[in-house]
């Protein structure tokens, strides 16, 4: 587990250095994810250590959003003032994005299958 965690942190660090060094608009961890993906492709798969550590981290991914979500206490005034546009915007946009993304993907997937 320690070896796998070290590996994840090293890749995050390298990603951070690349992102900042090259002034990319992409955050370090996402570059780290791409690097790990490349490493896995070269080595043809994760070690069982890395696989179980990743699974452990990702199983409770939701937990990691709790501290930032609690930050809503900093914005109670704005939320109280603008609750209607905020609520409608989030609700409408979330439903529309979920539905449209899924529908265009199904349309394209059918075309691929039927070879049109």
């Amino acid at each position, binding site marked *: 587990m320690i070896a796998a965690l070290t590996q994840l*942190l090293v890749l*995050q660090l390298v*990603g951070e250095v690349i992102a900042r060094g090259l002034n990319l*608009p*992409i*955050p370090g*961890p*996402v570059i*780290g994810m*791409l690097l*790990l*993906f490349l490493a896995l*492709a070269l080595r043809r*798969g*994760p070690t069982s250590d890395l*696989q179980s*550590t*990743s699974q452990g981290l*990702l*199983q*409770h*991914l*939701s*937990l*990691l*959003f*709790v*501290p930032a*979500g*609690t*930050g*809503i*206490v*900093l*914005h109670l005034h*704005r939320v109280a003032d*603008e609750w209607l*546009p*905020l609520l*409608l*915007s*989030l609700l*409408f*946009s*979330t*439903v*529309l*994005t*979920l*539905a*449209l*993304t*899924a*529908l*265009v*993907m*199904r349309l*394209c*997937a059918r075309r*691929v299958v039927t070879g049109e």
Partner: protein
Amino acid sequence: MTPQINELWVYLSTSPLLGLTLTLLAYQGAWWIHRRAGFSPLANPVLLAVAALVALLAVTDTPYQTYFDGAQFVHFLLGPATVALAVPLYLQFQRVRAMLVPVIVGLLVGSVVAAASAVLVARLFGASLATQLSLAPKSVTTPIAMGIAERIGGIPSLTAVLVISTGILGAVLGRYLFDALRISDPAIRGFATGITAHGIGTARAFQESEQAGAFAALAMGMNGLVTALLLPALLPLLQ
């Protein structure tokens, strides 16, 4: 309060131990409710845990910064967890390759619709400009979204809250919406959830299946890249 209890509270309220422990306790409680509710998307664990913590901070009159001094250790793990998403992605890559065209089309459509619809609806109902700009990257994973908000003139910490609200909404609504639209392919369900609802949607998608989770992780990563690149160009068109 007796002097000892007072001292104890002074110690606890300034030590990171309390914020960290409370975050884990709130999440454990939320997870317990989520399980008792048969893993229903409606009993979203992030929503329940955040609600409990917000109430607790209000009752004890604790500033967010004090809480975050402890909770930051959990927050920090978002970085290595994002890197770790490469593992399920690799394990599902055969399927991703077969779905390449739908994935790219879904990514472009989802990315633009997520940002444009949020800004336009907010403006239609009279949101301030700072709020509109803070909403624009709401479907992107928290660290990227905060960076984007800063660059386009939004409020990064407000964006973080809107991102998480979007994640919760997407995770709650996704299953019902896809069932209503008769979308059954776990790859498509996962990808659309990841585009819309980033990491919280991805966590939900992993509960549906490994494949849905891997596609959600892919969508989250790609949407982060695409939105960071496209949004500065898209915004002037929306004004």
